[in-house]
């Protein structure tokens, strides 16, 4: 009996070892095409154009010197009606297994409406292996201009991924991973925000999605205001003319605190913004005194405030809420019926900005 048990146990262990190999899922890298960037734009009313970017397998350290940076990727474009159709088409064309587990950036055309984008993101979410931390960008077609490689890297890497991961590089944190955008899309009371780019290596605006239809592009200043109101300013600079010459405030960063209450047909918000800055540039003949610093601070506060008001004005004009005030109300469960049903209410905002010069200049 014991021997039989032993045989059984050994058999079971053997079976486990064989099955644990997961041979079904392991594929050699040469049989697999691992996409880093996906771009989507409209081809016809029913069909979209999908382009997948793959790192060029022939790029080795020795061949790098002869390659232009743009050759570090090869692309594969197809026209299909849905994400999964596009996978199949690309796989057919490549004769390799398409793998999206390494995807870093998704670039969408600004012509996509909110329902279309939600459909796309839902399909993307249902795919088990796709990383939900991939960044989403929006651009005007042809969006392929935005799919860039970092010129300095020896191993092919996507520019926007490196940029959004770099906390020292961005004036405002604009990077929006897929899961946050999707989350904003399905949560009532907030208009999803996606960074919007027009040119290569330039991302200073946001695309805000209203209830339906195409995104509304906020101006650069309104985008800055949005970042101040959200407390997402990381390393901004402010420059303005004063009686003491041109002043530049650098390393502007800080926090924002909101209080949201339901108003009479409006959303009443009071926001406190606290910023610390470095005084970087001032007239060479000016002798700085505490009272001058105080006045510079007040001028800086005004500059920030005007951007904030511009942003709120833009939101009220376009019936959007990129700040998520409506969502805060919804979470507090005192949301008016209109908001819970995905409607919009005007924002009545009171903003207080406190700006403090931490140091005057750095270095000498």
């Amino acid at each position, binding site marked *: *009996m014991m021997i039989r*048990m032993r045989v059984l*146990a050994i058999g*079971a262990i053997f*079976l*486990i070892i064989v*099955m*644990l190999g*997961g041979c*079904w*899922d392991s594929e050699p890298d040469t049989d697999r095409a691992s996409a880093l960037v996906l771009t989507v734009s409209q081809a016809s009313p029913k069909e979209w154009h999908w382009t997948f970017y793959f790192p060029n397998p022939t790029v080795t350290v020795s061949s790098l010197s002869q390659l232009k940076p743009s050759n570090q990727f090869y692309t594969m474009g197809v026209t299909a009606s849905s994400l999964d159709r596009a996978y199949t088409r690309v796989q057919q064309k490549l004769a390799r297994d398409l793998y999206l587990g390494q995807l870093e950036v998704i670039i969408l055309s600004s012509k996509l409406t909110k329902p279309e984008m939600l459909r796309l993101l839902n399909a993307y*979410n249902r795919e*088990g*292996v796709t*990383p*939900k*931390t991939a960044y989403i960008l929006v651009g005007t077609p042809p969006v392929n201009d935005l799919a860039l490689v970092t010129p300095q890297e020896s191993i092919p890497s996507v520019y926007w991924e490196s940029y959004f*991961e770099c906390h020292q590089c961005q004036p405002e944190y604009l990077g929006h*991973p897929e*899961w*946050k955008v*999707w*989350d904003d899309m*399905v*949560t*009532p009371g907030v208009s999803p925000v996606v960074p919007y780019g027009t040119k290569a290596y330039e991302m200073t605006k946001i695309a805000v999605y209203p209830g339906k239809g195409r995104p509304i592009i906020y101006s650069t200043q309104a985008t800055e205001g949005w970042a101040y109101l959200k407390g997402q300013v990381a390393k901004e600079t402010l420059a303005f003319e004063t009686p003491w010459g041109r002043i530049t405030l650098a390393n502007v960063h800080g926090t924002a605190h909101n209080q949201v209450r339901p108003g009479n047909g409006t959303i009443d918000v009071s926001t406190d913004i606290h910023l610390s800055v470095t005084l970087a540039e001032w007239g060479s003949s000016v002798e700085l005194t505490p009272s001058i610093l105080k006045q510079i601070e007040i001028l800086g506060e005004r500059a920030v405030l005007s951007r904030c008001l511009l942003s709120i004005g833009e939101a009220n004009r376009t019936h959007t809420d990129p700040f998520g005030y409506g*969502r*805060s109300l919804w*979470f*507090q*469960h*005192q949301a008016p019926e209109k908001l819970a049903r995905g409607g919009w209410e005007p924002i009545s905002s009171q903003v207080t900005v406190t700006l403090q010069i931490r140091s005057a200049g750095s270095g000498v």
Partner: protein
Amino acid sequence: MVTMSVVAGAIYIWPQYIIQTAGINGLWSLFTTAGISLAVLALQIAWVSLTKSTPFAAVVRNTWGVFGMWVVVSMTGILCMTVDAIMLALFGQMLHVFFYPLTPMVVPIILIGLAGIWIAMRSLNTVARNVQFWFPLIILSFGFVLFLSFRNVRFPAALLPSPTIVIPQWLRATLGTWFLYANGAVVASLIPHIRWTRRPRPVLWTALAIGFQTMVLVVVFVTVISTLGPAATAQLQWPMVYVFSLVSVKTFFFKGVGMFVIITWTTALVLYLAVHIYCFSWNVQTMADLSSLVRRWIALGAGIVVTTIAILIPSTISAGKILFGVLNPVDLSWTVGATVLSVIVAWVRHRRRKHS
């Protein structure tokens, strides 16, 4: 050991259902279920101490006689085994979706089933030592990944309790959480085996065990809701897996820290199955006065039944339907009904014996 036997392997699908039914108020349902579970277990312990016997089957025999014992134990056994099978099926489907898309789904199910059977066929000591060894590791790695995912918390405000509580929703969500606590028989049959250092205080220990499980569930609930918000959570099939998949540490050895969770959950599920199958076979052994060798074969048989049911469940959707639509209500009413009745009968007999 009691604490360890309560580790449920099912939290990966968990918050979706109660958020769908009760929204943010799901938290109250969770506490209600924990309360019911605590009451039932206290009653079971009272029952065990009134009859002064172990395991569960012997307790039932002393109260209901031989025929009643077969009815009660087989009913409880069938319910427990079906719940186990659904846990196994859901877990296999989750592994298939996220980690082994090209591997047939039966492979992980059979593997986990085999590992569970293998441990369950050993002696009580081995089962207990295995649980004791793995438990801290499971909790540590789970805590580690949870800690990393706190970075993604966006909406602490989403946790504020709502001023309005809708009673039917609350009750339905309570029902939907029950399967996580449906392991009463296990604890009841293990109670007499705790080596008491001082005065035995089973009620305290059970309360601690249930408290610990509830704490883990509350942490899971809080993490998921404050990361995704209730609207998004209700749309996801695997909210917990989704939240953990968002953890990516760029400077770490590998990108997917979620791997830790998979190891954790697989081990937890193997142990959960092992403890359940062990207790079932032990109960059958006592009922029919069998040798311990036969008990092993019973464990093997029970394990095969569980694995087979798990393989036969065609999809996650049907598994969820069976679990929430059929098993949860049946199991809850059966457990509460049978326990209350049994305690009354046992108490009456106990008093009569005292007087005569």
